[in-house]
């Protein structure tokens, strides 16, 4: 290569960058927000599909309401399989060139995808799964969680169990990262004695053996974590078993995607989450109304989480160009949006510091839903934040 060629190339490169910069500036300055390409991988088929469908619907509603035409969302189905999720993530990052990844429901898939995503310099913003591994030592400046750290709702359930007067608890959860976090979180806040602790199989549908053990135990209450179809199966079988012990659990077994299939078996049960459909603030009321109008059903916590995630991304896009990762990250950390939870802020590990509510399953006319009872724990920050090296 001779020097004239190099000079010509440099000139061309200089001209091209000038044009590119010139085009980028108006995109941020026009007020509606910059362009962000978002890859949403979630579980749309198979067991747990209801959760992914709600996250997707809530997210897309949030994107629509942000009125930012530059937000482009590509949706894919991971079928609850980690290997498929990883393949889809690779395709989205390397082939579709997305800027931000989001959407995964389950913690085992999140642990497979999020670290690889952030290592490639892209943002991963979790609308659901919050495994402990990614909140503490494994935290990363490109990984944000808008829902909760997994232990949170379970800690709130532990606090609720104390208030219910439970002294000897029978506890169980499926044997996967979120299940382990569930039992850890419950035990951290529960002041009574753990009578029995069990791990069931992920996807298990027959709980007859566990119910028999409950019958033979002398526990005075049951805490369980069983998202999606697992919760439906357990609740139906428990209701038919003749055992009369009180139940408490995180909202994942009592949310809007499950209640229609469970019916009376869940009525009156207390459950914990960061939000309830009848929460007393304007943003939440507006969200529930618009979700019902758009999709014809009451939103679950998954839909609310997807919605808040979209609002977060839109708020950052309005302030910074996603290609400038440092500026975009700062904008994300500010969390300058009106959350359906009322107040919302991030801790140093980029997980929320928030209130957890106790909700009760009630029947309104023909429909089962949850109503907020009281705050279980206020301004809760996860215990792993101190292990995270991020400081800002």
């Amino acid at each position, binding site marked *: 290569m001779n020097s004239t060629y190099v000079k010509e190339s440099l000139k061309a490169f200089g001209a091209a960058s000038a044009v590119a910069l010139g085009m980028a500036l108006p995109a941020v300055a026009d007020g509606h927000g910059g362009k962000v390409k978002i890859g949403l991988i979630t579980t749309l*088929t198979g067991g747990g*599909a*209801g959760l992914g469908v709600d996250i997707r619907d809530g997210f897309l509603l949030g994107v629509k309401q942000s009125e930012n035409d530059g937000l482009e969302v590509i949706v894919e189905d991971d079928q609850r399989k980690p290997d498929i999720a990883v393949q889809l993530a690779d395709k989205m990052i390397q082939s579709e060139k997305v800027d931000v990844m989001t959407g995964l429901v389950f913690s085992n898939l999140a642990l497979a995808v999020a670290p690889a995503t952030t290592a490639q310099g892209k943002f991963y913003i979790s609308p659901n799964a919050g495994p402990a591994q990614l909140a503490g030592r494994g935290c990363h400046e490109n990984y944000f969680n808008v829902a909760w750290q997994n232990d949170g709702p379970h800690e709130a359930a532990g606090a609720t169990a104390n208030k219910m007067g439970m002294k000897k608890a029978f506890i169980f959860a499926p*044997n996967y990262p979120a299940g382990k976090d569930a039992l850890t979180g419950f035990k951290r806040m529960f002041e009574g004695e753990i009578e029995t602790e069990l791990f069931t199989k992920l996807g298990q*549908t*027959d709980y007859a*053996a566990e119910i028999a053990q409950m019958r033979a135990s002398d526990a005075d209450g049951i805490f369980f974590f069983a998202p999606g179809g697992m919760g439906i199966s357990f609740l139906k079988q428990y209701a038919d*078993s*003749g055992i009369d012990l009180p139940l408490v659990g995180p909202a994942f077994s009592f949310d809007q*995607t499950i209640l229609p299939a469970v019916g009376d078996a869940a009525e009156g049960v207390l459950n914990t989450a960061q939000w309830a459909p009848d929460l007393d603030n304007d943003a939440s009321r507006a969200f529930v109304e618009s979700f019902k109008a758009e999709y014809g059903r009451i939103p679950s916590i998954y839909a609310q989480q997807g919605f808040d995630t979209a609002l977060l991304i839109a708020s950052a896009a309005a302030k910074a160009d996603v290609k400038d990762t440092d500026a975009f990250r700062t904008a994300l950390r500010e969390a300058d949006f009106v959350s359906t939870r009322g107040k919302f802020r991030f801790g140093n590990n980029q997980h929320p510091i928030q209130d957890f509510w106790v909700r009760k399953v009630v029947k309104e006319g023909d429909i089962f839903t949850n109503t907020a009872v009281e705050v279980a724990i206020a301004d809760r920050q996860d215990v792993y934040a101190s292990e995270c090296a991020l400081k800002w």
Partner: protein
Amino acid sequence: MNMLLLIEQILNGLQFGVMLFLMAAGLTLIFGVMGLINLAHGSLYMIGAFAAAAVAGWSGSFLLALIASMAAAAMVGALIELTVIRRLYDRDHLEQVLATFALILIFSEGTRWIFGSFPLFLNIPEYLKGTVILPGGIEYSLYRLTIIGIGLAVAVGLFLLISKTRVGMRIRAGENDREMIGALGVDISVLYTLVFALGAALAGLSGALVGAIQSVEVGMGEPVLILAFVVIVIGGIGSIKGALAGALLVGLTDTLGRTMLPVVFGTFMDASSATTVGSALASMLIYILMAGVLIFKPTGLFGSS
């Protein structure tokens, strides 16, 4: 672990086994008579559950829902037999697997398209709810006892069908030598459609019975299908007796393993590790059982060599 708990767990194992038998009986007949590996059997289970949920919601009658589940599964079974399965009899097992796997995908998407992604509501009828006290003071779910009863009745009925009726005789002959009975003038295509529809109806019944105490959702059939294959391999392909024996064995091993292993490990490990190791080992147990049976009896417990 006291005696009452042990007996309750044994009953649970029996109930699980009976449910597996309903799935495995159809599968083993189809494999035995037609030499066909049918992966879509799990989808027929799902279709039975969905049909039952739909009819129960519309009519309020559980009995009607059960009948509807068998009818729907049998009709769908006959339909796919006439259109797809028929072309696979002479083909390699791998091609049968590919084609029936495609059917799984079609049925899953189709069901999602018609019924949506959220699980459906199907519940135990009022007259079967609650528990009964069995001799010995054991409190057990009436519905699960009913499932055991229905399963055993189906087993007896199938046995009588296969050994005492003309149709049964033809089925047994077909298992033995397909070409010969064709040459002897029996219309094998009608026989095959009949056997397929019968297997499908059993799968649908199983789906409906189990759907009432579990979750009626897309993809509910595949985990059961895998277990059903383990059952027919253990029991011997083509044998109803084998399907029953294999199913009860698998049901009891799985249930008792899941409950006893953590307890056994708990005697020398802390609770958390005992549960983790115990449940991990328990989920491998039925496959270890299958391997063990195959070492001593390569064609299964009641299989013909």
